[in-house]
């Protein structure tokens, strides 16, 4: 059953990435050099919409909050994010879109994936020698979220009702998506 869901949900996500133009490195690069914010608008809207609906549906018991999976916050999240950002800007691919770009017949994506496999291997080899360093110093307690709503993960802002907070952030994201100019 899980494998059937993996196929259905994976196909849906790949379809969405292709259709919104995220496979196209031209769109990513032009978003990052602030020329064409088409993808930025779509991403802001997607996060805002899914976040608001997720917390609303959890409140009504439609979505099981046990499905949430919050990743740990540590210094390496920011450092790793920055390393990824540099490569992301040069190539115009992120890990997910490099894979779906194969379906477009993009040859440069194959080279990106080859590099990606090497990068992941290098990390696998060095992890043992860096895992005790400052890179893994936790920030704000590690696996935390802003909003309440999960049994497993601590909220950073417990005084605000979680659904209200998440829906408010979500609405702000959707407004940003709507207000951002398409072409700059």
């Amino acid at each position, binding site marked *: 059953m899980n494998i059937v869901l993996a196929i259905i949900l994976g196909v849906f996500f790949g379809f969405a990435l292709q259709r919104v*133009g995220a496979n196209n490195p031209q769109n990513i690069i032009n978003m990052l050099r602030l020329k064409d914010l088409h993808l930025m608008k779509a991403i802001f809207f*997607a996060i805002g919409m899914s976040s608001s609906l997720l917390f609303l549906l959890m409140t009504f018991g439609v979505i099981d909050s046990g499905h949430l999976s919050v990743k740990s916050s540590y210094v390496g999240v920011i*450092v790793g994010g*920055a390393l990824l950002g540099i490569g992301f800007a040069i190539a115009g691919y992120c*890990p997910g879109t490099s894979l779906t770009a194969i379906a477009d017949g993009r040859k440069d994506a194959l080279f990106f994936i*080859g590099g990606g496999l090497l990068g992941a291997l290098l990390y*696998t080899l060095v992890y043992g020698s860096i895992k005790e360093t400052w890179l893994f110093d936790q920030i704000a307690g590690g696996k935390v979220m802003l909003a309440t709503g999960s049994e497993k*993960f601590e909220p950073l802002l417990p005084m605000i009702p979680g659904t209200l907070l998440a829906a408010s952030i979500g609405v702000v994201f959707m407004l940003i998506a709507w207000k951002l100019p398409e072409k700059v």
Partner: protein
Amino acid sequence: MTGQLKWFAGGILLGAAFLFAVALVKPIGVSTQFVIADGMVWNLFSDTLVQEDPGSKTGYSSPNAYLDKSGGKYAKNIANPVNYSFIFVLAMVAGAFISSRLGGPKPDRQDRKAPQVWRQRFGEDPLFRYVTVFFAGVLVLFGARLAGGCTSGHMMSGMMQTSLSGYLFALGAFAAAVPTAILVYKRN
């Protein structure tokens, strides 16, 4: 490009993908599967990389510290290629292919080697593009693994859950990506 959705329709479709995934199974993530794919190949040439281990949480362990992390979670997935997360990522490629066949945006021959913005800046020779993109791929996946996730897992899934790590990741990624893109490709 023709076939590409407007931001609004595209945003709804993308948001629905992330919402359905967390509603039915768990949040979407991609970059871990690069490690799993590496491990599957490595495992073909090694008798010791992944071992069954009744003493570990998942029943598997590895002498490699990274693959052994979280009770041997990665080691287990390497030993069992037909698992949710790996099949999900393979299915993404199929989904993109279906979209492309059903009227999605189609790059022309030149665009398949390098996007126009690259060609205008660095010329038509695809070799330079391929070499550069290879090294960019090294950086992106090394960074993603250090961060513990990529644009899908940290940024989209993370911020959807109001996870602090999602905001920190997005901050680090865009603070580096925007100046890099402007430096490399210029504004005009």
